């Protein structure tokens, strides 16, 4: 009972703290925008101190709330979080495949059909994604779309032209995911049926790892040798000096200046 009560208190506290942090984030953004919109070259130590001092009380409240949460977590009894196996269909399907092994008709035919369906859906999703990126790739490849005079406008346009199709393409993968989940559930039903019918369990072949060891070491060795060679070439052609040249000067753009 005490533990339930403690859990309830902690839940409510966490929600309140979450809301406070979001509000504080909004206040910080508002303060920055307030300075920026107050005029050209409006930033100064005084302006920043003035604007941010207005939100000092919410900052103190947040800090106090965070410490309160830490104290609560340290000293109040809390339920130990137990890891749950996700009932994700892919995980369940793999487990069933290991248990059941080879299927017999008609389940095998159904499962083969579902595998083909998922494979086709995946290919379509890949084609849609990469197809949508063709135009952005062509656009980015054309240097005439980019000029130093209209730098920011060109960058924003390029980002929109790339991100919008990319996000649409990712939406395609979400649709594939929905199709795949439905298909896997049908396949799971087949395996469960087969399991109920008492099909023999097939032993999982071991030692998949051991056959991979030699190729992995070879790949590592080759890549390390290539890395060493490139580093040496880079030192010889002045690339290493370029890194230093850039690193010893403040990158004003990187920190938002200039």
């Amino acid at each position: 009972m005490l533990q339930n009560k403690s859990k309830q208190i902690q839940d409510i506290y966490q929600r309140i703290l979450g809301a406070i942090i979001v509000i504080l984030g909004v206040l910080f953004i508002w303060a920055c925008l307030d300075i920026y919109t107050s005029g050209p070259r409006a930033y100064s130590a005084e302006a920043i101190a003035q604007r941010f001092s207005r939100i000092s009380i919410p900052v103190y409240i947040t800090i106090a709330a965070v410490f309160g949460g830490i104290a609560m977590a340290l000293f109040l009894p809390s339920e130990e979080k137990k890891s749950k196996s996700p009932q994700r269909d892919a995980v369940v399907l793999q487990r069933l495949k290991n248990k059941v092994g080879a299927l017999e008709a008609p389940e095998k035919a159904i499962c083969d059909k579902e595998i083909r369906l998922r494979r086709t859906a995946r290919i379509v999703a890949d084609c849609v994604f990469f197809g949508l990126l063709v135009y952005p790739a062509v656009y980015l490849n054309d240097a005439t779309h980019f000029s130093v005079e209209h730098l920011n406008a060109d960058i924003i346009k390029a980002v929109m032209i790339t991100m919008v199709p990319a996000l649409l393409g990712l939406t395609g993968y979400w649709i594939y995911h929905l199709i795949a989940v439905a298909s896997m559930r049908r396949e799971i039903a087949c395996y469960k049926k087969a399991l109920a019918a008492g099909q023999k369990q097939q032993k999982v072949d071991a030692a998949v790892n051991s056959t991979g060891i030699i190729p992995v070491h070879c790949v590592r060795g080759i890549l390390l040798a290539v890395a060493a060679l490139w580093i040496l070439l880079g030192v010889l052609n002045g690339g290493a000096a370029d890194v230093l040249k850039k690193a010893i000067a403040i990158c004003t753009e990187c920190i938002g200046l200039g």
Partner: protein
Amino acid sequence: MDKKKTTFKEWFSNHKPTKRRIIQLYAALLTNANLKGFSNGKIYQGNVKNICAPGLNCYSCPAASASCPLGALQNALASSDKRLPYYIFGILLLFGVLFGRWICGFLCPFGLIQDLLYKIKTPKVKKSPITRILSYLKYIILVVFVIAMPLIYASQSFPLPGFCKYICPSGTLLGAGGLLSNEANSNMFPMLGPLFTWKFCLLIVFLVGAVFIFRFFCRFFCPLGAIYGLFNRISFLGIKLDKPKCTDCGLCIGACDMDIRHVGDHECISCGKCVKVCPTGAISYKGPKILLAPNETGVPVKGAKIKQEDPTAVPNTQVPTKTKIARAIVAGVMAIVLIGALVYYNVIDRSEPVGSSEQTENTAQNEGSEIGDLCYDYELNVYGSDETIKVSDYRGKVTIVNFWYIYCGSCVKELQTEFPLIKEEYGEQVEILAVHSYEEYDSDIPAFIEQTFPGAEFTFCRDGEGEAYFHMLGGSQAWPVTLVLDEDGIVVSSIMGSTTYGELKSIIDGIITE
């Protein structure tokens, strides 16, 4: 009454920092060992910055002791018309093969910040198929901002580190935050504008996001994690799965906060949560067992059940004595390295920024760079000739002295777009001196000038020892800076950061009409 009173030892044992956290703190401190940078407001300029730190750590942070690989990659691609970027490619390949995304879990300072923010007790957004799909966004950011943008503008000889400029939160938090919080850099405030506003707002979004979503920036936006993730399967360090022991229970995937599909895939940051929960001991760390042994966290290895029957049972750790000794030695060496680095950067190293305070002793009286001062009259060498000029040679004309740097995109942009308009408007009434610092990197400059500013009617000069830079800029390490002098050589305006044609015109018109 039912619950036994917890002793301090048990309480400490449950709440002490994990080895991973200690390694993260160690790496963050080692990567930012130049602590005196916070007190003097200057960045470290020693030769050690030839080396790249593996994690995301802006080299404009005053404490940064090494370069950022992502920044170095973008600058190398921006200079790819001059030389192929073998060095940085080799560095990234080396880090990838050795560590993979183990870097994200153990060595990245910004990852540490996100881990600490996630510990704040708020409701959390759990992973889902949507977050899995969104995790591919970082690859798009890698292609567009890190690779495409620098390459596109390299053809126009314009250095544009796209990700660093428009997205990187490390630069805003550590670089801007570290520099602007020091009074010595108060002259940088006028340089803040729309770019800083955008980056600051983005930083707040990332930090607030990290409170609610595990590794918000790393999962969806970090191109460095995207690069290292490609090597996860073959890296020396990381997580591995012993497939014969695996029963596909899925507890590992359930415990993981990242968007993994399989243990050790490209999303895995080797945090080790899956190692703890695996009931059969099928998951372990790759590489040497010195730092972390498999299943050392207390789950019994042999005869394990999925449900832990007795949570108070003493875990079967059985760490061999040899391993304990090896660990002690490694810990000792790491401690010596860290102390050595702190002593070196903060006490021994004398890589003072150009224009150190010793040079102020020779400043002539009443000469300087503040408004109303007689501009310091220094000798400048003209590129492409043996001619030496002085600022005072141009008395009788309005003189614009612009300090620029070859790797500064803002500098190059205003020299390409704003100053030619001024020269066209005012002709011989205005003289423009474009002064470049750092003589030791001089060899690239004449060719760069010829290629980037063809037909420019400015006088490009070399500030060989950096003294004009110091005297005229007050020792600032940031470019561009523009001084506008009247006909008598008095400083009328001192502009930190980019300037525009309109701004310069209004200043010059004010001088001429007087």
